[in-house]
């Protein structure tokens, strides 16, 4: 991982400065986009009042639950598909069909089945996160070099232990990449699901502030969510590098 440098912040700072300048000069009317200073003030106030904390906890509880289900089911299903042709033939067409469906479009259906509470949100997040995890696990498992498996067998590893000692570790870099995609998807689907029906959560905040015309507060939550998402991704990558120092990561 390259050291985080100030230089990387320059384009972002320029963009914010241009935004602020356009607002002050009157080029950008408040009705179109509130000045950055208003948004920043809003964000500071919300952070100070603790308003964001409870909504963050609610949101990340849902996203975390959905993501965890997807991770467990996804890795298991991907492994099974790669190791058992029957499972692959049964599951693959269904996955291919679900793949292009915009997952938020299924939310109303899930609400009919599971109610308008957390269960339907968690279910749709799990479904959306499942696909990248299954696909990455399947591909990662399938691309494990045959000679690596032979190598383990010639060193006394039984057929049953091959999965734990060779297949999973060898597939781990690909699975980890799929999981990274799943994290991003979890946040996207989370916010969509909270738009539709919720009394808590960051998606709910964005939706209700937007509906009330409080554009600066709405944008403050969006920026807050962007920062959280960015940090989450960084933490994930840093954790991976520690865990998989044996692997040469491209990033």
């Amino acid at each position, binding site marked *: 991982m390259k050291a985080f440098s100030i230089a990387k912040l320059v384009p972002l700072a320029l963009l914010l400065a241009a935004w602020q300048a356009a607002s002050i000069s009157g080029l950008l009317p408040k009705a179109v986009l509130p000045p950055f200073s208003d948004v920043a003030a809003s964000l500071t106030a919300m952070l100070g009042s603790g308003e964001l904390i409870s909504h963050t906890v609610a949101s990340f509880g849902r996203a975390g639950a959905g993501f965890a289900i997807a991770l467990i089911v996804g890795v298991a299903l991907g492994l099974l598909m790669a190791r058992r042709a029957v499972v692959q033939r049964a599951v693959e067409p269904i996955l291919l069909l679900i793949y292009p469906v915009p997952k938020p479009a299924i939310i109303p259906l899930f609400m009919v089945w599971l109610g308008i509470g957390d269960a339907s949100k968690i279910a749709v997040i799990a479904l959306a996160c499942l696909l990248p995890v299954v696909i990455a696990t399947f591909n990662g498992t399938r691309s494990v*070099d045959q*000679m*690596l498996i*032979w*190598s*383990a*067998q*010639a*060193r*006394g*590893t039984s057929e049953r*232990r091959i999965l734990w*000692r*060779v297949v999973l*570790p*060898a597939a*781990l870099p690909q699975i980890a990449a799929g999981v990274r995609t799943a994290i991003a998807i979890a946040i996207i689907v989370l916010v969509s699901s909270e738009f539709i029906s919720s009394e808590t959560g960051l998606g709910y905040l964005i939706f209700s502030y937007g509906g009330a015309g409080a554009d600066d507060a709405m944008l403050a939550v969006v920026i807050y969510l962007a920062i959280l998402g960015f940090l989450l991704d960084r933490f994930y990558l840093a954790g991976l590098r520690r865990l*998989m*120092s*044996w*692997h*040469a990561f491209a990033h």
Partner: protein
Amino acid sequence: MSVSCLEMRAIEMRYGDGAQAVHALKGIDLDIREHEFITIVGPSGCGKSTLLYLVGGFLRPSAGSLSLRGHPIAGPGPDRGIVFQRYSLFPWLTVRGNIGYGLDEQGVPRAERNKIVDEYVRLVHLQGFEDRYPRELSGGMQQRVALAQTLACKPDILLMDEPFGALDAQTRRILQDEVRRIWRRDTKTVLFVTHDVEEAVALGTRIVVMAARPGRIKEVHERGFDVGDGEEFETNAAFAALKLRIWRSVKAEVEAANP
């Protein structure tokens, strides 16, 4: 020097059916005695690696039988150690973890395992690299680790599938000397596949020349003289003569395969 270690009888290997069928190996009969160093050389497509994988138990022959010290080969096992050209090592394990892998799988307790690993680290001259991962090592060092990993399991026979094929010429010569030294020390039985005639003569006490389409044994040369180290490639007249004889034989096969 006459106890039979490995016996191959009338081995046939076919892939596919009808017009697309490939006759990979035909009528292979070969007896390998204990402590022999057998090299198998031949053009690509002659089935020399396939033959090695059959001995490894990774593939099953279409017909014929293989037995190791009187027991039929039914699958892979730690009694036959193998070093591949690549992918012998587990990238997620350190040098220490890789060399100790087989011992770990066989339930050798940690303290004893560490002692054996240290011994093999010294044998292949990798002191100071115990905690490195394979990707941090050069190709030559990786193959040293693979060799140590295989030897640490104390196999009855050592199988080597073009182990130095991806290395530069200097590293290859040095590793050939290492393998010869280790073979002398342990007097292991070795079955070594290569496409390099010089390597075949440098290492093999017996050199098996194979022909392609179908893959079969063309001739077997008893080397009959000792090779001390790689410098004899240039200084030993008998070495040069045998190398030339085998090269002409292999060349005829390569030309027959690519007219």
